C-alpha cells in the first residue's frame, strides 16, 4: 500500500490498520497522536481503523519547545 506518511511517500508492508502501521514503524502508541486525511483517530480505534491506498497519515509526538515559531532573525532597521 502506498501512503503519505509524515510528509513522505511510504510503501507499507503487510499493514491493514493504524495499529499495524505503528508496529511496522516501531512507534509505541502511548503519547503519540495519529491523523488520517486530517481526521484524528482515537487510540481506541487504532486496531479497527483500516488504512487504504493513498491515505495521508501524520504521526506526531512531543518535542522540546517553549514558545517559538519558524523564527527568522531580524537585524536591520526598517527603511
Amino acid at each position: 500500500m502506498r501512503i503519505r506518511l509524515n510528509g513522505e511517500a511510504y510503501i507499507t508492508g503487510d499493514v491493514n490498520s493504524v495499529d499495524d502501521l505503528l508496529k511496522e514503524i516501531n512507534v509505541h502508541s502511548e503519547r503519540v497522536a495519529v491523523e488520517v486525511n486530517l481526521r484524528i483517530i482515537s487510540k481506541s480505534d487504532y486496531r479497527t481503523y483500516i488504512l487504504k491506498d493513498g491515505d495521508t497519515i501524520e504521526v506526531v509526538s512531543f518535542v522540546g519547545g517553549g514558545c517559538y515559531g519558524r523564527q527568522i532573525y531580524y537585524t536591520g532597521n526598517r527603511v
Partner: protein
Amino acid sequence: MEDRFIIRGIEFKSRLWVGTGKYRDFEETAKAIEASGTDVVTVAVRRVNILNRKSPNLLDYIDPKKYKILPNTAGCYTVEDALRYSRLAREAGVSDMVKLEVIGDEKTLFPDVCGLLKATEILAKEGFIVFPYTNDDPIIAKRLVDAGAAAVMPLGAPIGSGLGIRNPYNIKIILETVDTPVIVDAGVGTASDSAIAMELGCDAALINTGIAGAKDPVAMARAMKHAVIAGRLACKAGRIPKKLYATASSPLEGMLL
C-alpha cells in the same frame, strides 16, 4: 502562610513554569528542569521521526508522572493550525491543557490576537483548559477570559528577546481586569525580570530561553527558581511605597544634641 496555586482544579506546586526548547541536549534539559524546581513543562507537537526511531524522545527524560506536561501550539500561524495541533496534543494523551499560540508575525513572534480569540473560544467549548499566549493588552486579556480561557499568559517582551517586563503597568492593569490567573510568558531574561513579574502580582512565570539560552542553564534555572519565590513572597509581604525623599529609619530620640 499557605499560598496555593490552583487552576480549574489542578494544583500547581511551582510558580515557575519552564519550556523545553533550545537546550543543547536532553540531559541538559532534564538537569535544568530539575534545578528549576518546576512541576510544569511545556512541549511542542511535531512529527515523529520515522526514519530514525532510535533517536531519544524528550518524554524519556521528563517523567510525565513527576511533571505536568503542558502541550503548546508553538509555530502555529493560523487558527486552523492551532486547533489541529491542540487536538492532536490532547489525543496524544498527556493533558487537556494547552498553551495556545497563534503567532502573527515571524519577526516579532507577537500573537495574532484576533486568531487567538477565535481559537480560544472554540477550544474552550471543546473542553480544553486553554492558556492563551497573548499581548500585554488588558482588553484582549478580558476578551480571552470571556471566551473561556482558564488563565492568560501575557508576554513580558517578545519571545526569546530577554528584554524583561517592558510594560509593568499593562501587566498590572491585566491583573486588575481579569479574575483568572495571569502567567507572564516570554521576555524574561534574568532572575530580576522574573522577580518583577511576581512582585507585580502575577501568579506564575513561564521561562524557556531565559534559562536554556544562559551560559549555564542549570545555574540559571536555580536562580529563576529563587527569584520567582522571592518575588512572590515580596508581593504577598506588601512593599513600601516609593517616595522621592528620605525617611529616617533610626530614631532621633537620644541623639547627643
